[in-house]
């Protein structure tokens, strides 16, 4: 367990990078420190392995004040991954992975075995990579090795300083996934600095959002999405990423605005033709005031033998619909209750305003996901 107790870091007289920080990180927890640049997240991280010494306060690891440790010994017991990867270009991959082991005085044999074991852990063939040099690897592979290097001496705590920040989006996503898998197997205590909210949401057990050296909010990802503490958190998360419960979203936000309709007086042939042209298999039947009268499906038409009548003849009884202003939750319940895949949306006068389908629910989800991806690739 890592505990920050009233930790401050001041540079010079004025600039306070971290102000009176209190934070507890449990064993086996992956905590992301996130915030805009200059918020103190990296300073906080580097105080754990004493690359930066706090001006005030204490940091405890498993109850022991780290100020009492020899910094060199302390660092050998803590894994460290940096954005610039920092593999030693003069060493082979095997040597790079086990560099801390070498500092501990491992034998050659033990180093080699550990390097092989770790490479297999990320599906890199040891016979191919052990003797290679860092420059022969792609950026993503290099950072995989960077992570393995931090794991090699089996530290309980690993510090990661924007480890995937310099990678292209696809590789970054892969490595995030791999880190998550590794974490499921290894249960390390990981402190992970990032400025990328998607990354934090994806990997974190708990997110610590900082601004100007102060923690603004600390919460598990979905808790933070559901109950952002203030306007700053909302803006930092990005509005379109906020989880809104189905009780808050209105049907008109997700419905198809212009469903294909047909007037009740039209003939069957015309209805078929319209379905064919518009690639749908059901039509909203309306009167000349756009009031919803019912729905005809392609099956209804095919089943009815005499195709001479108009679509009105096919309508049977009242139609299930939702009203503008109802929530998505209510709509979903109605769909389930009546066993239908779509629901017309009507206003108070009974006029057709739109159509909610399962597909439109999927669309809205996709849109949210795509938006957050675009924001991500711009930043």
């Amino acid at each position, binding site marked *: 367990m890592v505990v920050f107790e009233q930790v401050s870091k001041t540079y010079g007289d004025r600039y306070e990078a971290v102000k009176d920080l209190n934070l507890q990180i449990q064993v086996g927890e992956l905590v992301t420190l996130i915030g805009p640049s200059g918020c103190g997240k990296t300073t906080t991280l580097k105080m754990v392995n004493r690359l930066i010494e706090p001006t005030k306060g204490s940091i405890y690891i498993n109850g022991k004040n780290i100020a009492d440790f020899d910094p060199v010994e302390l660092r050998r017991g803590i894994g460290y991954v940096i954005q610039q990867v920092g593999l030693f*270009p*003069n060493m082979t991959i095997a040597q790079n992975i086990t*560099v801390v082991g070498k500092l501990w005085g491992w034998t050659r044999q033990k180093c080699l075995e550990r390097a092989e074991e770790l490479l297999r852990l990320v599906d890199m063939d040891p016979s191919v990579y052990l003797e290679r040099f860092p420059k022969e690897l792609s950026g993503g592979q290099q950072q995989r090795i960077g992570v393995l290097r931090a794991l090699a001496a089996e530290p309980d705590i690993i*510090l990661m300083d924007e480890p995937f920040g310099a990678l292209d989006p696809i590789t970054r996503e892969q490595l995030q996934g791999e880190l998550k898998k590794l974490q499921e197997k290894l249960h390390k205590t990981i402190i992970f600095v990032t400025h990328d909210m998607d990354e934090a949401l994806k990997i974190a057990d708990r997110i610590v959002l900082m601004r100007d050296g102060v923690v603004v909010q600390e919460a598990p990802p979905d808790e933070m999405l559901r109950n952002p503490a203030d306007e700053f958190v909302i803006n930092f998360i990005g509005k379109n990423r906020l989880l809104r419960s189905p009780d808050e979203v209105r049907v008109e936000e997700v419905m198809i605005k212009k469903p294909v309709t047909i007037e009740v007086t039209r003939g069957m042939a015309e209805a078929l033709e319209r379905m064919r042209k518009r690639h749908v298999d059901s039509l909203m039947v309306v009167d000349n005031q756009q009031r919803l009268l019912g729905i005809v499906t392609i099956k209804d038409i095919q089943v009815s033998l005499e195709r001479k009548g108009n679509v009105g003849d096919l309508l049977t009884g009242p139609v299930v619909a939702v009203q503008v202003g109802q929530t998505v939750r209510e709509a979903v319940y109605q769909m389930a209750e009546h066993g239908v895949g779509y629901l017309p949306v009507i206003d108070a006068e009974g006029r057709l305003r739109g159509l909610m389908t399962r597909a439109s629910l999927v669309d809205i989800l996709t849109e949210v996901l795509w938006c957050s991806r675009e924001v991500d690739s711009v930043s």
Partner: protein
Amino acid sequence: MTPLYLKVINFIQNHPQEFWGAIRDHILILVLIPVGLAILVAVPLGILATRFRWLERIVMATANIMQTIPSLALLALLIVMGLGIGYPPAITALFLYSLLPILRNTYTGLKNVDPFLKEAATGMGMTKMQQLYMVELPLAFRVIMAGIRTATVICIGTGTLAALAGAGGLGIFIVRGLQMLWNHLIIVGAVPAAAMALLADYFLGKIEYLVTPRGLRD
């Protein structure tokens, strides 16, 4: 009238001991000793200069001044300053000349090591010494070797002036040839000296490549 090149060959054939002795002295006393001493002094000094700012200024300024003094003047000054005549002033002058390239390259080579690598090294728990031996020196090695190569070539060339201070080496033939206006004698000294410089440059370049860690070669 005997052609010049025959006179050169004749001289070498008639005075083999003098010729090969001069070459041996040139290599051993005027190159290996001063460059060797310079490595022993300049590499540690260069390392220390990257660690202490005050030392950095003193060391670099002194070495730069040494390099600026004309070689003949430096040699004369050393004689006047009481080193006498012969090898001591010659070796001292060449040693001082070799200092700067090695010192400067050691310093630059170490300074140019990516700061993130140093941070990674520190963050993983290397001591300052381990960082130096495992990371910084291997990465700076090539640049340091380039400094040694420059120093060697300078010594081979400037070493020909040592004869003026009464030391041996190939300079003896050049000085004597100039005094007697014997062109062939000048060539007996000058051509091997030039060839030696070119060869040293070439082979040290090869060595430089071979000692570069495999992961750093182009």
